[in-house]
């Protein structure tokens, strides 16, 4: 019996030894978009909506810079068999597709229903699938929702496609610019105007509930903070301040506005509580303190100050205590914006005559520059903290009647990934500046 157990033990030991795994660590990989096959959605409405939706989804995913759609002309399996029999994974693997998106659109009364499935082609199984319903007029929004779902499944992050951008539209010649507050889908569709252009407007900022906008207007001949709604309600002056007020931003809970107030040549940061209209001073009137921005948790405020002799970025507690400098790059830093993820602060930097958009940690470390140009400024974040939105001016020259070269510039909104990859222009009807990304709708 002992011999039996001995033999059994040796056999077991042998088996264990034989299945011991070889361990290898992989530390290098590829930084590249994920290849995805996006089929035309089967269209039961027979109005071409299926194709429109798949085109919107394709543009969304391309805009993110993280996906590479496979040309439809290369598809082997047709949409009909895909929806009735399921994917023939071998056909899609042959195209080097990692993901496959298919779906259908149908109409129920005045509503549209979009259902879709996202497949992992390599593993050969469904990753996710949903059905979304909305009134027909919101078909673009339905498509953006599908894009958000695909994005989230592939990256783990929330998408940013079902969002809007508030911005300042600029028209007319330099020196006599007409600036209007405008609102549009992030992809440039559905543009609407909230002001008439009678007075200059700047720096619109969304409230957390996505229904209100705070902005700066010269309607009273001096820059002051106003509130309006996304529906274009008449702007309301915020507070009863005698002097200039500017650079407003909502707190994460939507209860307060932080802004700068000017007095006797100095500028201090104040917190204005919307409900009771109370005002709390956070920094003294010693220097120029401007461009305040809350942290996503609402516990800190980052701002620009020249208290050290030049424009630098500082962070303080929400109550104004413990201000400390975080930028030390040996040049000017300004216009900080705290990422919704909380891990980074975007800023504008000027170095040797060139403007840069950069990011750093709240501790002032790991500074990286992600965009540069003749003039780039006013960085803001997409709601998932993945992309930056900023104003970029391109300089050019014209000739007057005397043959003299006259410098000029065009202003556009641009977006870049937080990694610095994939910079692209945001489509606007005319020149634009001071863009602000809304929360997810």
């Amino acid at each position, binding site marked *: 019996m002992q011999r039996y157990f001995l033999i059994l033990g040796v056999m077991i030991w*042998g088996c264990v030894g*034989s*299945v*011991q*795994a*070889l*361990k*290898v*660590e*992989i*530390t*290098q*990989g*590829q*930084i*590249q978009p*994920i290849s995805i096959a996006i089929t035309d959605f089967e269209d039961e409405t027979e109005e071409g909506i299926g194709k429109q939706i798949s085109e919107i989804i394709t543009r969304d995913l391309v805009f993110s810079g993280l996906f590479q759609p496979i040309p439809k002309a290369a598809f082997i399996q047709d949409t009909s068999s895909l929806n009735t029999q399921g994917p023939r994974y071998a056909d899609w*693997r042959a195209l*080097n597709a*990692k993901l496959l998106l298919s779906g259908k659109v149908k109409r129920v009364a005045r509503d549209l229903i979009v259902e879709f499935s996202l497949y*992992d082609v*390599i*593993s050969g199984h469904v*990753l996710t699938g949903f059905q979304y319903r909305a009134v027909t007029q919101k078909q673009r929004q339905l498509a953006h929702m599908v894009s958000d779902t695909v994005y*989230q*499944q*592939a*990256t*783990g*992050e929330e998408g940013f496609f079902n969002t809007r951008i508030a911005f300042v539209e600029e028209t007319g010649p330099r020196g006599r610019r007409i600036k209007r507050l405008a609102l549009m889908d992030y992809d440039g569709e559905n543009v609407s105007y909230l002001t008439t252009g009678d007075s200059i407007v700047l720096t619109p900022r969304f409230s957390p509930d996505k229904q209100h906008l705070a902005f700066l207007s010269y309607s009273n001949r001096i820059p002051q903070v106003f509130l309006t709604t996304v529906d274009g309600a008449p702007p309301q002056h915020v507070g009863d301040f005698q002097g200039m007020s500017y650079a407003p931003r909502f707190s994460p809970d939507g209860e307060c506005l932080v802004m700068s107030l000017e007095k006797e040549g100095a500028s201090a940061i104040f917190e204005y509580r919307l409900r009771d209209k109370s005002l709390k001073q956070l920094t003294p009137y010693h220097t120029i303190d401007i461009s305040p921005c809350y942290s996503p948790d609402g516990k800190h405020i980052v701002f620009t100050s020249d208290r050290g002799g030049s424009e630098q970025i500082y962070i303080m507690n929400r109550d104004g205590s413990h201000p400390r400098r975080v930028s030390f790059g040996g040049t000017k830093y300004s216009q900080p914006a705290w990422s919704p*993820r909380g*891990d980074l602060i975007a800023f504008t930097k000027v170095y040797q005559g060139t403007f840069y958009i950069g990011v750093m940690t709240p501790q002032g470390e790991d500074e990286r520059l992600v965009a540069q140009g003749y003039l780039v400024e006013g960085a803001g974040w997409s709601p998932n*903290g*993945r992309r930056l939105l900023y104003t970029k001016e391109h300089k050019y020259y014209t000739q007057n009647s005397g043959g003299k070269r006259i410098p000029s510039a065009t202003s556009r909104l641009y977006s870049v*990934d*937080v*990694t610095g990859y994939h910079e692209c222009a945001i489509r606007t009807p005319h020149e634009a500046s001071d863009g602000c990304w809304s929360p997810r709708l």
Partner: protein
Amino acid sequence: MFVMLGVYDPFKRSLNSKQSILIDFVAISEHSQAPMQVPARNSQTPPQQKPAQKPKKPTPPKSSKPNTPPPSARQSRTTSPTVPKAPAPPPPAPMPAEKPQKKPTPPPKKAQPEEAIAPPKKAWLDLKEEEKLLEELGREAPAESSEPQGLEDLLEELADSVEDAALPGAQAADRLGDIVTATEIDAIRRHVARCWIVPNGVRGAKDLAVEIAMRLRPDATVYEAKIVNAHRMQHDPLFRAAAESARRAVLDPQCNPFPLSPEKYNQWKNIELTFNPKEMY
């Protein structure tokens, strides 16, 4: 230079990883008892030897099958050194052991495959019996490989011996000591890196390490890839996405089969890959 010294040239690729090679695995115990099969070089022998090759569970020793009772494993060991001096050396250096050297099949199998040799009644032969057996088998093979063979010759012998249904016992004896080398591990890393799309730009990306437990077929293709710590995927969407990306990397047809030596299958049939992007940030 390496070849002249009889040492494997580490810079020269040996076998084509996609070359089909018949493999027969035996446990040590079987090896010591399995009758040696004598693969013949000429056309007559293959038919005899192929059947011998088939039983992967080599009916231990009776050698009832082989008409030409192969010498015992120990015989093959003792003979092999005498035959190819070159292959013998492997043990020490060949840790990075190059298969070719271990492969160098024992000469005995080439010699007189048809001759019937009485199956050994015991698991090993004493010295005199071994010498007698050697004489019977002849020195042909030994003579061929008495001088240090070139690498090409060794590879050719290996290919022949495998095709001729070699001596599973003798070959297994040579392979059992193999381990996957550092070079081969580097090859795995480079191979997988081609298909792994790194989660870039997500928060905490450099801390998203993912472990994948793979099982491979003898042809080095992956037939199972499990995400270790899969329960984390339920509540951590960033980890879920990173894990799915890593799993796709190892299952991707463009990265199958893996560049692994079939002879070392026992060493790599189970592999745990840790995808750790921190060095890329």
